């Protein structure tokens, strides 16, 4: 590559053109090189991490069972106006679906899905399938004769609603709402609400845990930041050791500390503060969750706070004092405002981590200390209502990403520090 650079104005037009082309080519090459370095990890994360989450998103609205296993009915119902009972053609389609579905042993899956939406649908469909020999033309009369439910317009509305490829029904359930027979969506009775309550409790308890970490973490970070570096480094071990210790180890040590026959109760009894019979129940309830999680998340508050406080010159406080400020005014008006970035960074980090917790609440939370994560796990592994688990997961994800967006605005991903 020979570029003769003389005084720029003297370059011949074609020389200038070539120079420009060379420059942009070299820029493009650098761009490609940088992209190639990043590409393997980007592809890896998309395949192993983003795709699974996308799959879950899909699952929360996907509704294949009725559409796939009662195809003719679904198709025929598309033109039905929901005002009065369907006509003979639709009944004929239903008869076909039930007879064929019974042979292929698939009708049960559709029936189960219908039953999620309205109790009794399963026995209606399965009962009809059992008496398939009696189904004959004219189908409308014959089907209603076999099962009276086929003469009920509500049941047809349910089938039509669930026949669409996508459903909002999991989200409706996850928001503690129900669909009325007329298709209107409304909240269920407040006493029967589960998920919204649990979401609120998760948010509320996470806020409490965040507040606790600020309360405990701020003075300690201040102490560490105002100490000589050597002493601070030694005391820092007390913060870093829990940080590096396995989550399960810390959770099980809290069981040993807090349980009725545990160390704290033993200590209180020994000190004579409480009677042996009146041991305090500090675990397997909300207290256990809050205490253990505050302990687990406290380092995530102290570390960013400490690094911000390190940058505040101590001379500012002294200057404020020498100008006549009381210690409180000096702290409140001079020191605290400068540490706000640290507080917000730590608080948002703790809050994000806390809201998605599952293990600790499951082990020490009992009934009252459960988080939304525990219910997602329950629907994944216990009730096997995967659609609902996916919908709850997506709601939690949206919440977390929203807060993360705020975090990013305030702190910036590039400023995340470890250790």
């Amino acid at each position, binding site marked *: 590559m020979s570029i003769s650079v003389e005084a720029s104005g003297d370059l011949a037009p074609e020389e200038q053109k070539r120079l420009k082309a060379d420059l942009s080519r070299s820029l493009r090459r650098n761009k490609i090189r940088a992209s190639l370095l990043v590409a393997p990890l980007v592809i890896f994360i998309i395949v192993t991490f983003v795709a699974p989450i996308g799959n879950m998103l899909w699952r929360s609205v996907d509704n294949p069972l009725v559409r796939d296993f009662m195809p003719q009915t679904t198709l025929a119902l598309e033109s039905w106006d929901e005002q009065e009972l369907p006509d003979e053609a639709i009944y004929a389609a239903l008869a076909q679906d039930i007879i064929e579905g019974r042979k292929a042993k698939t009708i049960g899956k559709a029936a189960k899905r219908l039953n999620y939406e309205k109790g009794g649908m399963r026995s209606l469909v399965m009962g009809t399938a059992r008496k398939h020999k009696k189904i004959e033309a004219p189908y409308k009369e014959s089907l209603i004769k076999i099962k009276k439910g086929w003469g009920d317009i509500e049941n047809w509305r349910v089938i039509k609603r669930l026949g669409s490829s996508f459903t909002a029904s999991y989200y409706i359930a996850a928001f503690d709402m129900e669909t009325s027979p007329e298709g209107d969506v409304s909240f269920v009775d407040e006493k029967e609400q589960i998920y919204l309550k649990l979401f609120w409790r998760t948010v509320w308890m996470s806020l409490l845990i965040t507040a606790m970490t600020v309360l405990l973490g701020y*003075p300690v970070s201040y102490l560490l930041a105002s100490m000589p570096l050597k002493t601070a480094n030694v005391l820092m071990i007390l913060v870093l050791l829990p940080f590096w210790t396995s989550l*399960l180890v810390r*959770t099980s040590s809290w069981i040993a500390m807090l349980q009725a026959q545990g160390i704290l109760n033993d200590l209180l009894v020994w000190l004579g503060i409480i009677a042996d019979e009146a041991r305090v129940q500090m675990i397997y309830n909300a207290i256990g969750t809050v205490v253990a999680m505050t302990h687990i998340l406290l380092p995530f508050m102290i570390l960013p706070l400490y690094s911000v406080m390190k940058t505040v010159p101590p001379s500012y406080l002294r200057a404020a004092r020498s100008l006549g400020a009381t210690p409180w005014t000096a702290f409140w008006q001079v020191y605290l405002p400068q540490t706000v970035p640290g507080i917000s960074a730590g608080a948002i980090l703790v809050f994000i981590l806390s809201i*998605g917790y599952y293990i600790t609440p499951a082990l020490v939370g009992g009934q009252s200390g459960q988080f939304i994560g525990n219910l997602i796990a329950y629907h994944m592994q216990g009730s096997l209502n995967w659609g609902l688990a996916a919908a709850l997961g997506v709601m939690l*994800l949206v919440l977390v990403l929203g807060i993360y967006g705020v975090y990013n605005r305030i702190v910036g991903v590039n400023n995340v520090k470890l250790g």
Partner: protein
Amino acid sequence: MAIPTYAGPLERAWYYIFRIFCVAVFIFLIAPILVIVPLSFNAEPYFSFTQGMLTLDPGAYSLRWYEEFLTSDRWLDSIKNSVIIAFFSTILSAALGTLAALGLSRSELPFKGVIMGLLISPMIVPLIIAAAGMFFFYSSLGISQSYVGLILAHTALGTPFVVITVTATLSNFDHTLIKAGASLGATPTYTFFKVTMPLIMTGVISGALFAMMTSFDEVIVAIFIAGVEQRTIPLQMWSGIREQISPTILAVATILITFSVIMLTTVEILRRRSDRIRGIS
């Protein structure tokens, strides 16, 4: 922070209250970890101190839980599984993460913010969501209940740490060094291994240690996608705490605490070395 000589009585009182409060927080931080250690030598199957332990009666202490741990096939298998999975996922995350960090540190990279956000996302997204998604997706690929599935999942969770630590090391990296290498006739590959690599090595290693800890401590994804064959240490602890709570858990915990002390020391040494090399302190 010493108390200033001009402080009044109120300020003095406040100063001592503040100190006592801080000591209390330090105790809160460290006590739960320290009590585990003596409890794991308990001769009785309890989670609390017996009378004998408090009077330092040697008979009240024993190594029976360690013996149980080291002679149980389930625990030994879980160690093997954890080591295998952590080993491969650490190497994979270190390699992928370092490459990506090298790309991210170049100013020419387009869409940097979006890419960084994407690469950090495994750290932000609640694990229960990731685990549920992986359960569906990995099953459909046929890699759930396999080492491959668990290694891939743990690699994804570990890479953000490598990306962050290596990017941090590279942010102070003097790029003229590469040009100097090139001007002296070195090939880019040669410059990379002789100049770049030694300088970012501390970042790579501490990132890899974070990734290793992540894999070693990870339980939620393991609950969802590990089969019986892939039971890891955390998974074994999880079911141990839920089913029959025995002090074997405490023996394992003590071993893990020793392990984290070693890790902490290593990372600390690395950090100091890296600061020294870059001339910060």
